[in-house]
């Protein structure tokens, strides 16, 4: 089945899978976004415990998705993995650090003799929510704005700045996406609270916070989206493989791929609709719209970055070192082998959904926190 596909089709297939994982990851950042409200919405010990446990039953999904996203990117586009991770060393180290402290915090937070004290672990969760989302947003923005690397004849990466990737936070464009992702994660976290928590105090504060976070989200998102449409982009000549700058490249991409345009617009409307539902109605159904909407928008952004003869990981200092889905991918054989494995994905999704529903049947409340055997 896959063996007969041409290399380009497999490269596109895998860019789509990686993009899908990336978009699901951003949706699952509701865990990170929720963590940043520990102190703001959780005013009492019980309230904080409810919040931590609501998110704590899902943090492993986000974590596994992040790891799988990294693994799948490595397997299908190893040159991206080598270039970005080896090049933008400090950005990725900071992101890693933010996730290292997260994994232990849920399990250790309320355990006796936890050495650092409950507050420290709560701060770890806060830092993870803040840094993890913001820095990944900034890193993804460089897919459009470019990075400071060059590759030699052995494809070994050289980075032009000593800051090794951290210089990306100095770009207003990159910042706009970093902040968009941060506020989006917070909005999604709040919508998730509405869906899963049964506690009046938390829900009242959640609604208020939703308004205050939806506004900066919309502002930063519009800034990013408009800027993206207006900026020049990294185009690739399909015959020669030469990379060149093209004005309005991403706008052209959007118009050249009507399916992506529709996904993008539907996604934006769904996110905004989800926020409106969260603000205007009780019942917590906003996440049903904002979640899939997020996946659609992020997915279409990845498509804009990599499809239609575009360099998805461009170099701002050495254009011809830029990575495209063609020059950065694995071999035909490896992509075919991986594609067979990808047939398991629907099965994996099915059991995740089944397990998720099994645990979310009932909303979390104070009573459950007192009775539950395993409390974070």
């Amino acid at each position: 089945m896959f063996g007969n596909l041409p290399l380009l089709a497999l490269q596109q297939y895998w860019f789509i899978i990686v993009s899908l994982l990336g978009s699901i990851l951003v949706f699952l950042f509701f865990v990170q976004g929720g963590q940043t409200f520990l102190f703001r919405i959780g005013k009492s010990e019980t309230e904080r415990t409810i919040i931590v446990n609501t998110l704590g039953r899902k943090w492993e999904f986000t974590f596994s998705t992040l790891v799988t996203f990294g693994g799948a990117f490595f397997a299908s586009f190893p040159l991206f993995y080598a270039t970005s991770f080896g090049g933008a060393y400090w950005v990725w180290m900071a992101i890693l650090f933010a996730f290292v402290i997260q994994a232990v915090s849920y399990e250790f937070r309320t355990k006796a003799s936890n050495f650092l004290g409950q507050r420290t672990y709560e701060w770890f969760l806060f830092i993870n929510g803040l840094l993890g989302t913001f820095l990944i947003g900034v890193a993804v923005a460089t897919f459009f704005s470019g990075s400071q690397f060059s590759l030699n004849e052995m494809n070994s990466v050289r980075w032009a700045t000593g800051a090794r990737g951290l210089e990306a936070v100095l770009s207003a464009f990159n910042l706009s996406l970093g902040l968009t992702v941060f506020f989006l994660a917070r909005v999604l976290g709040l919508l998730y609270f509405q869906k899963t928590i049964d506690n009046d105090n938390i829900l009242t504060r959640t609604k208020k916070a939703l308004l205050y976070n939806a506004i900066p989200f919309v502002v930063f998102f519009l800034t990013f989206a408009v800027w993206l449409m207006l900026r020049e982009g990294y185009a690739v000549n399909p015959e020669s493989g030469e990379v060149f700058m093209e004005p309005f490249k991403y706008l052209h991409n959007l118009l050249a791929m009507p399916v992506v345009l529709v996904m993008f617009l539907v996604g934006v409307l769904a996110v905004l609709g989800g926020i409106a539902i969260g603000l205007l109605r009780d019942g917590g159904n906003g996440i049903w719209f904002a979640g899939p909407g997020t996946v659609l928008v992020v997915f279409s952004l990845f498509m804009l970055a990599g499809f239609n003869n575009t360099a998805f990981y461009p170099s701002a200092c050495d254009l011809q070192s830029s990575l495209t889905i063609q020059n950065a991918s694995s071999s035909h054989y490896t992509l075919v082998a991986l594609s067979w494995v990808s047939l398991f994905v629907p099965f994996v999704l099915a059991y995740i959904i089944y397990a998720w529903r099994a645990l979310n049947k009932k909303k979390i409340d104070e009573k459950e926190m007192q009775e539950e055997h395993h409390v974070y």
Partner: protein
Amino acid sequence: MLESIDMSLVDWSRGQFALTAMFHWIFVPLTLGLSFIVAFMHTIYLRTGSEEWKRITKFWMKLFGINFAIGVSTGIILEFEFGTNWSNYSWFVGDIFGAPLAIEGILAFFLESTFIAIMFFGWNKVSKRFHLIASWLTAFGANLSAIWILVANAWMQHPVGTAFNPDMARNEMTNFWDVIFSDVAVNKFLHTVTSSFLLASVFVIGVSAWFLLRNKEVLFARRSTVVAAVFGVIAAIATIATGDTSARIVGRKQPMKFAAMEALYEGQTHAPLVAIGAMRTDTTKFPNPREDFIFKIEIPNALSYMVYLTPSGFIPGISDLVYGNEEQGLMPYEERIERGTVAIETLKELKKAKDRGDEATYSALREKFNDPVWLDEYYAHFGYGYYKGRQLNELIPNVKLSFYAFHTMVILGGHFLIFTLVVLWLSMKNRWGNHKWLLWVALITMPMPWIASQTGWVLAELGRQPWVVYELMPNLAAVTRLKPAAVQLTFWIFLATFTVLFIAEIKIMVTQIKKGPGGK
């Protein structure tokens, strides 16, 4: 291509990876083994309906959870460190090495993380049957993830199922099944997981012994011990059997590692195995083939027999490998370096010819990379080409560390077999706990599997130096070009973080153990 390299960068990068891997490996083997022990206990609970078994299951499940979290948090660093610190490696072999990592994520991590949530939170939320299935799937998921990462490691030790693509300057996978079913991969997986089962069994026996010594929770402790002892004996036998196969494979496929772990400088037939020995302090400075031991007790012929199942098998020593041994068909390193240099130069010429559009030269050179004879004569030594003009002793692993790591592991392995057999036998007779001194032995034995497990990895990874990919890519070619100070800084940050997390984990574990199963 062969630019000057600051060896302190290589050392710090290796140090950082070793730090992360060893720290990660404190927690993972316990997770691998304990997940099955919990599943056994959970099954017994469901079959008997006994509340006591429910308490037992919940207690060990709690310890499993604490341990699992810290294993996850260190695992993510390892995955990304291949890119951050070994980016040239990630490109050179990413076509092969990336696939197992991706499959690990898709097939194993989600299985584990989905069902672990059910396992912890499912007591009153899902049916008892489904809850039990979740416990089993968590155990399978954890061990499934071990398969893929160990396949990846085995491939680095013994690269098979691949071919070099000079146009891309990388190795590409040619046979997926060869990669995952290579004898190195299969044996590495079996040895690693069975030794992890053993580690977890000894842990459960040790913790239970503590309760028995204090005469607390006696029924809980005895029952836990029985489950762990049965599992432990099976695991100990399997660990020793797979360890024996491992040694045979190393002897045949990684002769330098094998010579180093036995500190064998001069090769011979009827080679004896050093059962126990102490080395002089100056022996790692090669060449210094004599006076390498202060004392040693040897088992005649055992080394030859171990590898070739006959005493007449020739085991090459470090000197034979470095300086060659014509009689045995061993090529000296000088020659291998020359040939590797030819392979590297050919690749360079090919790149240049392609860049200047010289089609004829390019095709002629490209043809060489398809010619099995040329590949065997030159490309097979590719990695050695990086050592042109360097010291030969850079190609020799740390002999003393390899020797001690190997012997520590083997001696402890023998101890675990006897120990678990005694515990099982006394448990079956219902006499486990009657002898206080044996309970103390159980307590003292408890940390030993960690030592054995860590030394096993020290041998596996240090013994293959300087190769990141055996004989194809040395560490100095694989490392990301960073400022050594940058890697030093992250090294210290990680060391500090790990130390804090380790203290927290130990304190929490000890407190949870002291609390006991509770809930009576």
